[in-house]
């Protein structure tokens, strides 16, 4: 199984963009090795700006460069970008500026650094801002394509990347389309809607379910906003039960977005898998995933519970 981190893919994508488009500038807040912007910095030093560890300024300077016609990529850890949330809201998003906030070490992927360096609330924080696009790639190939695609689209975007190496899901010729959900597995019994690192776990869970004659549809939502409402409603109608799974709080992320849509348009029994209302802690990434139930096995269990409700119409409490 081939492994690559989405941050590494981001660094590679920036190099390509740097070659193709001299309006691309990259900013970092003293984390350029970790975010992989150092590759761009080495090749295009005149278009790379390190602002030091100053995230509010990072966003403001990126905004100024965008106002002057540049496509700004601003990078830091996911959690530290939320420190500049108000700058992102009031300047970048309000004025619809061409600033791409590409952040690494999202979710629990910064395991041993502990709660202060993990980011479990960022999707919710970014999703709520008007004009903002939120992208959570599921593998390195999707990450690279998403970064290139977002560079060519005007307006702000939040691109959520990971520290750890994760399995490659897509082929090289994969075509990323902004705002379009990707159907990865067909199935009529129930749908697993997933994003980011959890897409792979969802596919593994679907394999386990197949052994028990359960056909689970697996959907990859790489664009959390604008989210593909049409496909989500269609899948709800076709399967009648939905499990969402994300490496993020159970509040306000993918589960929240899907529930917002279905509650109004087509309510079906649903389970939201994510990190419960709590902080992370130090630990190896895989240990943390296991603790918080972000595994194929836990998805498998949740699906089976949900199928009970769907098939036997157990009254919901």
């Amino acid at each position, binding site marked *: 199984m081939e492994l690559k981190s989405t941050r590494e893919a981001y660094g590679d994508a920036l190099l390509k963009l740097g070659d193709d488009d001299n309006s691309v500038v990259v900013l970092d807040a003293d984390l350029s090795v970790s975010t992989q912007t150092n590759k761009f910095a080495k090749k295009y030093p005149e278009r790379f700006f390190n602002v030091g560890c100053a995230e509010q300024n990072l966003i403001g*300077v990126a*905004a100024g460069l965008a106002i002057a016609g540049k496509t700004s990529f601003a990078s830091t850890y996911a959690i530290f970008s939320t420190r500049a949330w108000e700058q992102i809201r009031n*300047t970048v998003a309000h004025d619809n500026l061409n600033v791409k906030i590409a952040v690494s070490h999202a979710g629990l992927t910064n395991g041993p650094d502990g709660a202060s360096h993990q980011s479990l609330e960022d999707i919710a924080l970014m999703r709520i801002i008007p004009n903002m696009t939120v992208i959570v790639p599921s593998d390195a190939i999707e990450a690279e394509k998403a970064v290139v695609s977002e560079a060519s689209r005007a307006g702000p975007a939040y691109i959520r990347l990971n520290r750890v190496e994760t399995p490659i899901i897509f082929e090289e010729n994969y075509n990323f389309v902004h705002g379009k959900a990707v159907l990865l597995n067909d199935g009529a019994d129930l749908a697993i809607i997933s994003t980011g690192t959890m897409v792979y776990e969802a596919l593994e869970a679907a394999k386990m379910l197949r052994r028990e004659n359960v056909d689970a549809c697996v959907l990859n939502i790489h664009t959390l906003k604008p989210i593909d409402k049409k496909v989500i409603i269609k899948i709800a109608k076709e399967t009648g039960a939905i499990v969402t799974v994300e490496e993020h709080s159970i509040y306000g992320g993918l589960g929240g977005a899907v529930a917002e849509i279905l509650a109004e348009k087509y309510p079906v029994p649903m389970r939201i898998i994510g990190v419960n209302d709590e902080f992370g802690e130090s630990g190896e990434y895989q240990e943390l995933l296991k603790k918080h139930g972000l595994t194929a096995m836990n998805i498998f269990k949740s699906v089976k519970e949900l199928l009970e409700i769907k098939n036997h119409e157990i009254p919901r409490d």
Partner: protein
Amino acid sequence: MHSQGASKLEDISMMNIGAIKRLDDKARKIRKQVINMIYVAGSGHPGGSLSCVDVLTTLYFHTMNHKPLEPEWTGRDRFILSKGHAAPALYAILAEAGYFPVKKLPSLRKMGSMLQGHPDSKVPGVEVSSGSLGQGLSIASGIAMAGKLDKKNYSVYTLLGDGECDEGQVWEAAMLASHYKLDNLTAIVDRNGLQIDGLTEKIMCLEPIAGKWRAFGWHVIEIDGNKSVEIIEALDEAKEIRGKPTAIIAHTFKGKGISFMEWINAFHGRALSKEEMEIALQELS
């Protein structure tokens, strides 16, 4: 006319006499607009709008290269109003310069108007929306960096409030601008000495404010920010400085121009009554 043999210094002062009279007349006109706009709106920030009128007037009617009928002209000097609550002053200036009709000014803060309570980039001539304090210097720095990168010779100006300098982001940007040697950037601090809750020195001591900017690597000029001649000279000096950005500490009076408003903090964020408005307009006539 001055004689052929006049020194350079006299040359400047001769030129300035006419220019200064025009600027002062213009500033008086802007102050009237500000008083009227905030009166009609029924809310707004008259104190801090009036304190910076002379700086804005000098920038827009003397120093800056700009084309009001072509707001997106790429060669323009850029201005960012970081202390966004002085929006009425900026709007009055832009209208007076011809960016949009003066008759739009009374729509300030009204539903559906482009003249939002704080600057909005929908308004021709407004480079970026502002209002949340502490952010303009970062944005101005980004524009200045793009100017350097593109080898354009426009200048970038930003006006900060003194109370605004409490914001940590101001100093993040101050550090960056000197690190990147942004000599195409000038920050003007409207040093009116008051912030919402009272005297800046009582709420959060700023002094030595000039020393702080100097320590951050800036060329610092202190002036009477309500005197156009001093503003002209400081802005001219800023243009000549190479290798570092310039900070102009403009000592001003909040409510400048209206006897009962000067140095009175009650007028930070409240509109004038009808009677106050009438007296104010009379004083400006």
